[in-house]
């Protein structure tokens, strides 16, 4: 990846993170989970997915399905930066007059399907991928999964079927930030060796640094990894990435920030200050 493209992606990602931090004010949002996948979502929309905000019903478009759901501020911010929705609309976060709440609603332009209940959108994505194949289409379907979400049996059930159907137009992108809701995955239900598990289910797997745009580009450019079934990209990420004061903290999954904390975290994002958070860590699940 050339430097200009990398800088451009970093600039978009920074703006998306600013949006997510603002959404953590007021009623709050799942900030930690959103920041771990921000670079993934920005990369996908800016450089991989063939989806035009002016033609959202194009049957030939690529699909991103946000299966973990609670990371939707990363998607809202990306959709705003890329003109799917207006930036002003983000101020409606949690307003009953709009559809921008803690999980995605497909009434928001660019959101393909609602989610929030974990372990659902792999199979929904499989249905889309199967139809694309029936029609001889070239659309690519990417399902973004949380790593904690991999506890759900429906993921592994779906992988058995995806391999049986040979859905090579389907890619699972795992936001491997190392956390369940409130506990590290390896402390609760260990997932490692995760790539081996996917491989055993017939997937072709690559592991990348989920905050390295160049590595993401290399991985996505190589899709599909195999013609026999789905591809899996395990993206190693950091919960809260970009904000050292909340990075990799189990208690900063959901954040409800005071106005001064929003300001401080925006400065921390720019590297001009370190925020001291006093808002109570919330355990929402």
């Amino acid at each position: 990846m050339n430097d200009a493209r990398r800088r451009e992606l970093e600039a978009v990602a920074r703006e998306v993170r600013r949006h997510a931090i603002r959404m953590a004010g007021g009623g709050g949002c799942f900030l930690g989970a959103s920041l771990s996948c921000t670079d993934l979502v920005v990369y996908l929309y800016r450089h991989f997915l063939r989806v035009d905000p002016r033609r959202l019903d194009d049957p030939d478009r690529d699909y991103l399905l946000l299966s973990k759901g609670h990371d939707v501020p990363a998607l809202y911010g990306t959709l705003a930066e890329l003109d799917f929705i207006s930036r002003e609309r983000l101020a409606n976060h949690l307003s009953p007059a709009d559809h921008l709440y803690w999980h995605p609603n497909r009434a928001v332009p660019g959101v393909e399907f609602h989610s929030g209940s974990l372990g659902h959108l792999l199979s929904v994505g499989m249905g889309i991928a199967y139809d694309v194949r029936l029609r001889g289409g070239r659309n690519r379907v990417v399902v973004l999964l949380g790593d904690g979400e991999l506890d759900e049996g429906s993921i592994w059930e779906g992988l058995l079927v995806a391999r049986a159907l040979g859905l090579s137009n389907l890619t699972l992108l795992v936001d491997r930030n190392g956390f369940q809701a409130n506990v590290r995955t390896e402390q609760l239900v260990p997932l490692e060796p995760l790539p081996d598990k996917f491989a055993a289910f017939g997937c072709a797997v690559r592991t990348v640094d989920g905050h390295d745009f160049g590595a993401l580009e290399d991985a996505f450019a190589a899709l599909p990894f195999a013609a026999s079934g789905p591809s899996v990209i395990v993206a190693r990420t950091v919960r809260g990435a970009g904000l050292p004061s909340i990075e990799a903290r189990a208690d900063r999954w959901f954040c409800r920030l005071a106005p001064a904390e929003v300001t401080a975290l925006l400065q921390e994002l720019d590297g001009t200050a370190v925020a001291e958070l006093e808002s109570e860590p919330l355990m929402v699940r």
Partner: protein
Amino acid sequence: MTDTYERVLLDAALRDPRVLVLTAENRAAIRGLPDRLGPRFLDTGITEQTMIGMAAGLALRGRIPVVHALATFLTMRAFEFIRTDVGIPGLPVKLVGAVPGVLSEANGPTHQALEDVALMRGIPSMRVFCPADLADLLAGLPAVLADPAPWYVRYCDRAPVAEHQPFHVGRAEVFRAGARDDVALLVAGALFTEAWQAADRLRADGHTVRLINLRTLEPADAGAILDAARRSALVVTIEDHFARGGLRSVVVETLFAAGVLAPLLSISCGERWFTPALLPDVLADAGFTADAIAARVRAALTHRIPVPAYA
């Protein structure tokens, strides 16, 4: 009658390329479809959740998926997928629950779908069709496929005992309604056969009997239910379903909402799973034979001991 369920599905799929048939390896009633439909027949294996999720994805792409699987596992194993991925967006997925109720015969309680109607009608966008027999099922299928809503069809392949009327969503089929009747038998599903025969026995006693095949429980024909209650001395609901959440609940809710009070006798599985056996023995054990139904109705009419209207 020479038509079959499989034939009607095949014709629908051949006529309309949007129609796909999915199953979780429950092929008994659709065994000829794989060869005829090719990739538009999709067997996902014993994976009800994945099957429903895929049906939702297919519907998002403009397809009309017909999902045929055993009623218990379809409605219960995959319930949250149905509610979340089909019900919330109201996608046109057509769920067909095979061997529901007494039709599971000797399989035992794991296979007895006796709460499937309650579960499916608990989903706001879901419509529910409980055919009386194979002819009724085939009469209703085209309308179910043409309707844009998600549907649950309680599969029934029993041989018909009656000539059915044309099918309309939300309209009951009423047989022999009088200006005043001694009793109205309201039935949804496979016990229509026994209800029909019980009506004949009661008429032989000299009673006037109206028989109502509700057909769809969501939406239910409120007019037919209220008319039955107003013009009959006794309302009887007959269903192979637990007492909660099925036909009896629909009738009680309808009467109460309209402020109509009527003596009501509920014949159902009550609160127990039935004894596993072949169908004639199941019907006998559960009190669902025509003779048993007629006897309970006679007792209610003679002794005036029907349960209170809203019990």
